[in-house]
């Protein structure tokens, strides 16, 4: 028996109540699946995704040099076939060996579909919607981990291009709270979704990681000033909804941290709102803070790492874009820094480290 199987076996022996006849567990199936399951090593995943993207780029250069985009219908058909076949193959034969080839043919397929539709004089909205629907459809086929992850990014990307068309950009202010709220629900309903034992439970984990990257992808549009053609005067609407989601996360954190007294809860809410209020015109900052809290609570390391990188980037970008003199910026930064340090000192004294 492998080490991994040993760990799982020990766990089952510890937790499975044999006397309880209502509880059934198929050990044989578990160990069989463990034996030929997909590898979940991060290095392997990154290698496959990078290789898939690289191969896609070179292949596209080749196709454009040879002038394939002249055959519009052929390209469309080929694109549909590539997306369909890679998804189905990935569902049937869920092994890392087919990872690179399915990721790149999936991506190339979508590029084909997009370009052929544009060449066929379809509107940008039509193209984005088609890609959106196809990506959702491919996700529902429940392919393996990597393809599901790429599909989520594709769904988000097509949604963003849809919003970037024809003065619809301000809907991004609604999209962000929606994404954040959905991500929080997804994170906290791990048990619920897994035990539903349906389509969603099969794609729970890749969708979770995909949603993390998708959120940061959307946040970039509001995190950097000047990317959107409207003023940031309405950003506070988005921020308020994000604050609400952060409170929901805090509420869940209180349970784990065993914070019971109402007085203490309210003082924590008050402190958090004081820290968050200055970021009311920078929802990207509060959203990445939300992501960090969520991901760290359920111990999702990728999510926490993406959140921290996002937070650092969005804070720096915010202060860079701010139209204050360096002196004002300095006073603001220094004051908040000292407040955080005092807060740290206070907490460090108060917390019982045992």
């Amino acid at each position, binding site marked *: 028996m492998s080490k991994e199987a040993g760990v799982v076996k020990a766990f089952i022996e510890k937790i499975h109540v044999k006397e309880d006849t209502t509880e059934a567990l198929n050990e044989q199936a578990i160990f069989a699946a463990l034996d030929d399951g997909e590898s979940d090593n991060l290095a392997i995943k990154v*290698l496959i995704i990078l290789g898939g993207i690289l191969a896609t780029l070179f292949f596209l250069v080749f196709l454009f040099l040879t002038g394939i985009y002249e055959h519009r219908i052929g390209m469309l058909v080929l694109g549909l076939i590539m997306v369909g076949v890679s998804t189905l193959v990935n569902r049937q034969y869920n092994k890392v060996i087919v990872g690179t080839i399915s990721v790149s043919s999936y991506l190339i397929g979508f590029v084909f579909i997009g370009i052929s539709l544009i060449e066929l004089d379809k509107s940008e909205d039509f193209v984005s919607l088609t890609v959106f629907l196809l990506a959702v459809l491919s996700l529902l086929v429940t392919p393996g981990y990597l393809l599901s992850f790429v599909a989520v990014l594709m769904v988000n990307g097509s949604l963003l291009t849809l919003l970037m068309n024809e003065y619809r950009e301000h809907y991004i202010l609604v999209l962000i709270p929606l994404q954040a709220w959905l991500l929080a629900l997804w994170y906290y309903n791990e*048990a619920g979704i897994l035990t539903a034992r349906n389509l969603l439970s099969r794609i729970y984990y890749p969708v979770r990681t995909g949603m993390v990257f998708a959120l940061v992808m959307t946040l970039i549009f509001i995190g950097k000033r000047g990317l959107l053609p409207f003023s940031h005067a309405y950003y506070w609407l988005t921020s308020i909804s994000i604050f609400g989601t952060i409170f929901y996360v805090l509420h869940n954190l209180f349970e784990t941290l065993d914070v019971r007294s109402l007085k203490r809860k309210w003082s924590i809410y008050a402190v958090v709102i004081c820290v968050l209020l200055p970021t009311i015109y920078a929802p990207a900052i509060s959203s990445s803070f939300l992501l960090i809290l969520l991901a760290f609570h359920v111990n999702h390391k990728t999510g926490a790492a993406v959140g921290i990188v996002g937070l650092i980037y969005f804070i720096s970008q915010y202060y860079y874009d701010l139209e204050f003199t360096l002196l004002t910026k300095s006073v603001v930064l220094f*004051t908040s820094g000292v407040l955080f340090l005092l807060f740290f000192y206070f907490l460090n004294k108060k917390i019982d480290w045992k």
Partner: protein
Amino acid sequence: MKNTLRNKHIDLIVQNSNWSKDRVKGVLQEYIYNDASTLKKFIVYFILALGVGFTLAGIIFFFAYNWQDMHKFFKLGLVSVVLIATVSVTLFIHVSTFTRHVLITIASVLVGVLFAVFGQIYQTGANAYDFFLGWTLFILIWTIVSHFSVLWLIFIVLVNTTLFLFEEQVAGDWSEILFYTILYLVNGFFLLAFEILGHKVERLKLPGWFINTLALITVTYATLGLTVGMFDEVSTGYWLLFLLAAIAYSLAVIKGLRDRSLFYLALVAFSGITIVSTWILKEGKSEIVFFMVALFVILSVTLVVSLFVNLQKKWNNE
């Protein structure tokens, strides 16, 4: 069990049992999610990092503001006082080792601020290479003595910045291959030193994220040198870098196999695939070469990945 049991195991059990939602929720909370003490630790250090980051940024912005009426002695004095105060706390007040590390890191950044203010007053420019060289040298001893990963990272970034500025401002006649070889050797030297040190003395082992970042930087320079250099006239310099990289990559593979970690192996594999792909592109005469590169990338990555999967199986079964 908490650290070895992963989400995918819970998922497997759930899909092959009739465990209820509440049952799974309890198991996740007990075995996967972070517990109260880890969460508390994280929150406190998160606040500390924000505090240190914002305070330092505030200090830097304060001196970046062009003070017309502040006398130069006052300006230099102000930074020096803050610097001395920080170092004094580190030296004379009884605080934990971790706090000491954080304080000495702050002091190291303040040394840079002091140099920058000096440069501002005497118009030496804020991006002169000697400014960064001075900064690097002056924090060298603190970095070695504290042996704190964050400070080491700052130090490595400073060394690289100094090299880039030196190449830009002084050594204009360096060939690309020479420059990348120097960058590769300098970063590689630190990587090797840390690896040996960590191997010999357990206490001096630096955290994985730092070593991995440094390895990533080193391999990136070697890869850049070997791909960009390919398009210049082939010189002995190119083959020297090739040889040096080959030795380091072999060491990395040995280490990866010994430690049973795929990180080094994946790094070497990806670098190798990039170099060979560039070579195919360079040698190619027609458009078909792009198709061949695409094919090569897919095949080689697939091959490497299946090799890794088999290795993992083997390690797992031993």
